């Protein structure tokens, strides 16, 4: 699998710093699970945190802290290396954790034109959902406010500029208005996260948005 569309440095650094909203964390963790290139880049940003940790002003622990720690680990089992927990389906482990299983565990909600979505439970600063777009169908024409990340898990979609296959992530900001289309062959399933409500142009009247929490 060759991934051509990666996470930005800004997203990886914000993830390393622990400053992304939960929904974006999910997209980053899922992409990194599929992409060794971004896993390496993330490792480099984590190393910045490690270097800061070495330079930081120490603050002395309490008198009996070490004894407390030693007696605590006395009763703590150490985990051992696990057998390969290779997810059999299309969802890498962090996403399967959120869904509580693979594709069959998703509770889809129809939003018209054969398109389905499933909102995932995340914190309030951004929202995440799975999108199901039948092969050959357009993702409803939409503009963006804020930032939107779309990660392909199955099938592929393309807009005027580029093609996105499994593992590819599209990063859209407010300037992007486009009409992505799911490519023929296989229905397209994506994980999408945004820190602002999407406004669908053609398919949903604005009033209907609160209903779908998008």
């Amino acid at each position, binding site marked *: 699998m060759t991934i051509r569309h990666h996470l930005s440095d800004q997203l990886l650094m914000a993830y390393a710093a622990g400053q992304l909203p939960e929904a974006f964390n999910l997209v980053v963790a899922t992409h990194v699970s599929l992409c060794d290139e971004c896993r390496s880049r993330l490792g480099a940003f984590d*190393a910045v945190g490690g270097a800061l940790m070495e330079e930081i002003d120490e603050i002395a622990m309490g008198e009996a802290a070490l004894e407390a720690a030693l007696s605590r680990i006395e009763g703590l089992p150490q985990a051992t290396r696990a057998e390969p927990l290779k997810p059999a389906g299309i969802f890498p482990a962090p996403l399967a954790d959120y869904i509580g299983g693979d594709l069959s565990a998703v509770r889809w909600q129809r939003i018209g034109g054969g398109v389905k979505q499933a909102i995932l439970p995340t914190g309030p600063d951004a929202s995440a959902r799975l999108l199901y777009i039948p092969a050959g169908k357009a993702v409803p024409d939409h503009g963006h406010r804020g930032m939107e990340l779309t990660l392909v898990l199955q099938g592929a979609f393309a807009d005027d500029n580029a093609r996105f296959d499994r593992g590819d992530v599209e990063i859209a900001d407010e300037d992007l208005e486009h009409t992505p289309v799911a490519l023929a062959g296989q229905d397209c399933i994506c994980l999408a996260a945004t820190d602002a409500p999407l406004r669908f142009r053609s398919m949903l009247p604005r009033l209907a948005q609160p209903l779908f929490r998008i």
Partner: protein
Amino acid sequence: MAKAEEGTDWAGLLIKVRDRQDKAAFAQLFRHFAPRVKGFLMKSGAGAALAEECAQDVMATLWQKAHLFDPARASVSTWVYTIARNKRIDALRKDRRAEPEELDWGPEPEPDQAEVMEAQEDTERLGQALAQLPAKQRALIERAFYGELSHSEIAAETGLPLGTIKSRIRLALDKLRHHMT
């Protein structure tokens, strides 16, 4: 005990914790890292009592999850940082944080001593590079990692030589994938 700072083989100590449940090695790691974790958490806005409690949790996690530490991919400082960061998200933001799939399956890889050294040296070199940054730039990086900047305020242009670290991790990953298949 003597101050065993410069040149201490932290990865070696952690591997003793992992393979032999070595309490003396754990104690040495604790003395070095627990006060740093506490300092990190207080800089991130935790009070002293919470920071102390969380630092204890971080060190207990280090004991429990030692098998997940891959010395070819990260220095111990970096690994401790990631545990402390996740603890901070847990304790201060109460968010759930998705983590990438672990790459810990397959046979226990024998750590390659040269790779282990490189990972630790990377962190040391990065520390020197940080110290040489203009104060303003360094402050921005610190604020990002202490949780004072929102994700849209974070500028990834750090001025730090991260390319070589990335390439080294990439090599270690390729090697690991090769072993796994």
